[in-house]
């Protein structure tokens, strides 16, 4: 187990360096001068511009800039935004909100998706199965921003259950509806994955044996069918965490939640390279770590899988 984790951590290094280099190159190698943009319509003062360039290391060659950034990642010194705040402080405000939103989304999609998928898979071809498949197709097909508008319109403006604009310090209950919207598409995928794999496992030999041994149907269902069916679902949930946090760009915009998505989007539009790169780097790290955890979880779900 220890060896396996060590080997996986080593494999992460090239992926981490590659992904950050990719993002760094996209932000800093492409045309456009953020310093000139800072002056707006006013003429560029060469002295101030030079000083700013030096401050943000924009006068250094690309690879030096990248190495300085990597050093910053490990010393937690991610530089300042153009308005002078340390990027790490901006992150400290944005990430807790988005993490809460993502937790709501993951719980909703996992619980609902697995329960509905299980029921549909057990009666494959029945009316509940057809209905849930149709609903899942619909949820995937309707763009998330339309789902968001409609949810905001219905729950905030018609019913008045939530505030249309959530704002800076949201409670869990305020995040429920945005979380459901954020997790809706993934809910459809979880449902379909669970349904297919339950339908397949239901007729497997080990399930027939378990039934023949005289186990209670409830136990056969949870321990023998569901546990084996969860592997593809867990894989999907793992890769989805990063996607959800990034996908929050849209949901956070609609409900006015000042989380990672909103902050990142503003930073991209203002070409604030340091902030963009820092946020995306953290998202990449989260993605890599969650995937490692998912792989370790396989061994819990399927005793045949052993890591040495």
């Amino acid at each position, binding site marked *: 187990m220890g060896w396996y984790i060590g080997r996986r951590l080593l494999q992460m290094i090239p992926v981490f360096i*590659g992904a950050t280099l990719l*993002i760094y190159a996209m932000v800093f190698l492409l045309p456009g001068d953020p310093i000139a943009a800072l002056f707006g319509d006013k003429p560029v003062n060469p002295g101030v511009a030079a000083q700013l360039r030096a401050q943000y290391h924009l006068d250094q060659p690309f690879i030096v800039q990248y190495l300085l950034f990597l050093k910053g990642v490990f010393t937690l010194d991610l530089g300042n935004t153009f308005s002078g705040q340390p990027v790490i402080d901006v992150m400290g405000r944005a990430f807790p909100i988005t993490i809460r939103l993502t937790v709501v989304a993951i719980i909703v999609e996992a619980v609902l998706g697995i329960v509905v998928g299980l029921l549909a898979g057990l009666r494959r071809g029945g009316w509940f199965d057809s209905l849930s498949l149709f609903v899942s197709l619909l949820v995937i097909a309707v763009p998330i921003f339309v789902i968001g508008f409609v949810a905001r*319109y219905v729950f905030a403006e018609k019913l008045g259950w939530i505030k249309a604009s959530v704002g800076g310090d949201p409670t869990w209950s305020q995040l429920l509806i945005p979380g459901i919207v954020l997790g809706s598409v993934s809910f459809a995928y979880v449902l379909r994955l669970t349904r297919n794999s339950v339908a397949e496992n239901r007729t497997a030999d080990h399930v027939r044996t378990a039934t023949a041994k005289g186990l209670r149907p409830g136990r056969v269902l949870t321990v023998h069918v569901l546990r084996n069916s969860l592997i593809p679902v867990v894989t999907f949930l793992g890769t989805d965490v990063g*996607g959800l946090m990034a996908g929050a760009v849209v949901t956070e915009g609609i409900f006015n939640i000042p989380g990672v998505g909103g902050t990142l989007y503003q930073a991209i539009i203002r070409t604030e390279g340091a902030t963009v790169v820092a946020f995306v780097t953290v998202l990449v790290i989260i993605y890599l770590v969650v995937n490692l955890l998912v792989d370790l979880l396989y061994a819990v779900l399927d005793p045949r899988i052993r890591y040495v």
Partner: protein
Amino acid sequence: MSDITVRPGQEHHVAPLEETPLKAVDAVDDSAPPSSQWGEAWRQLRRRPLFWVSVVLILMIVVVAAVPSLFTSTNPRFQTLADSLGAPRDGHPFGFTRLGEDVYARTIYGARASVVVGLLSTVIVTVVGGVVGAIAGYYGGIWDAVLSRIADIFFAVPLVLGAIVLITSLQSRTTLTVSLVLSLFAWPQMARIMRGSVLQTRGAEFVTAARALGLSRLQVLVRHVVPNALGPVIVIATISLGIFIAAEATLSYLGVGLPSSIVSWGGDISAAQTSLRSAPQVLFWPAGALSVTVLSFIMLGDVVRDALDPKARTR
């Protein structure tokens, strides 16, 4: 029919010959041509109503995208401010946008951008991801290690996020550049599917047979492995066509997709959100058209998957 020697004490244990499975095997008519994986899939597909529904929808959408002028003679860019957010009336069945453009004409003309981006991205992703995945899966070793790590790098960056970052730094935004940007972050998924599929096919007996007959490794890969590994790739390609259309709309919605000079559903939905309360039909039609388009491609992918998967086949 008792020409089998029945030993004493075994009378009850030996089935009569006409009931043995061998008889059933002999009864199979092998004079008919063998049905291939694709022939069998097609026989399955023909019987599924969902298949025909999605095919008809997709054909309609493609025709609308190719020749929008067949369906409306109104200019989608023509603005009459007097009609701003106007209700539907004769000749303008869906009403007007905030700028007084005809919603019906814009919905019809918006199909092209979505379909072109969806098709272009899917073709690029399928070709690039397919080739990379096939090489990684078939040659293995160092090829697999290097190509899989490169795929991991692009896979670790979330699709829409990576696309926003790259596209804001681009000078020109056309359907081609938007497709290229989406493909750049989407090919690793296809490469993984193709690699897995090739790994499964690689060990089959017919592959060994082809090698034994003297075909080179490349010939075996191109003629025998790839055609037999394409099933899952085609399914994912069909589904991701829908996903790309939705992603393009998301980019346009965020204001970083296609410029407003190109009529697109995403851009129209984005513009309509300010008038959601007073004129919901302005949002409804482009959103509905987008959803139906995405739905038809995902549905097609779904039925094709069922048809290619022997375990899911309806008997």
